[in-house]
């Protein structure tokens, strides 16, 4: 279901034109799909919130909302995308009182590129340092780099890179222009790659090319 359709279904519910109550079949379907998606619901909630207890609260709230609106989901094949949109919307709503943190973004990120740091064209046929680094990165390295992002950047990276939402969908959920999502995503990815580079330097996975690299802690 597209974001607009979700909004209109909410409006239908608020207007008193309630859909039919869920059936036993609905309950079985819902329980099965939640069981299948529990790992991903919790994983995404954990990346959004950075806190296990908050992630559990977020998943629980999203599941309750999803059940309440299940009769409005016309195409059950869309359940997965639909419930992850509910999860993201719930997180953004929870953050509304901290909206400044979600909307605020600095402007000084300079387009850091891991590829530019690692790529060595003359090694092309017998070595590939950039792909080697990707294979050496642990999930905890990626998680730490993602966790270091400010909330406003992490929200768009999780929404686009982990959930596969379009820029338009994220803009609608955050209530910002598409251009803001685009620029924030670019800065977020730059920061993420810079954090991974610094971690790789600290772990001795790569060697810095510049004095600045080698003095980073």
């Amino acid at each position, binding site marked *: 279901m597209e974001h607009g359709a979700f909004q209109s279904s909410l409006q239908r519910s608020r207007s008193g034109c309630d859909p039919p109550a869920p059936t036993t079949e609905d309950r079985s379907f819902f329980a099965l799909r939640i069981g299948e998606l529990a790992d991903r619901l919790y994983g995404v909630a954990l990346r959004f919130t950075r806190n296990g207890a908050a992630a559990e609260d977020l998943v629980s709230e999203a599941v309750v909302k999803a*059940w309440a609106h299940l009769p409005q989901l016309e195409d059950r094949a869309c359940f997965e995308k639909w419930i992850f949109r509910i999860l993201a919307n719930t997180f953004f709503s929870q953050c509304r009182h901290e909206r400044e943190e979600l909307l605020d973004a600095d402007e000084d990120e300079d387009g850091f590129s891991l590829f530019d740091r690692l790529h060595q064209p003359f090694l092309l046929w017998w070595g590939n340092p950039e792909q080697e680094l*990707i294979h050496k990165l642990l999930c905890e390295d990626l998680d730490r780099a993602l966790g270091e992002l400010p909330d406003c950047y992490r929200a768009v990276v999780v929404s686009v*890179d982990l959930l596969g939402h379009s820029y338009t969908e994220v803009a609608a959920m955050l209530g910002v222009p598409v251009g803001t999502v685009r620029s924030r995503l670019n800065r977020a990815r730059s920061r993420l790659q810079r954090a991974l580079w610094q971690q790789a330097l600290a772990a001795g996975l790569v060697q810095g090319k510049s004095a600045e690299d080698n003095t980073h802690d």
Partner: protein
Amino acid sequence: MTEQERMHCDEVVASLLEYLDGEIDDARRALIDDHLAECRGCFSRAEFERALRDRMRSLASAPPPDSLRRRLKAIIDEF
């Protein structure tokens, strides 16, 4: 394809992340596809960004604690 239509490396690099996100129109996508088929440097860059994104996507899954599984079961049992 004329030289004017052909994309240069700096243009491809500038649009690469949006290309990988599926956020560009078909005509521009086709131009980048053509460039990546011919330019080894940009192709390597695209492969790197794609592989990094695939690794990031692995973060979208984490085993839920038993407390959450119990909580979800209790919620669904009440429906």
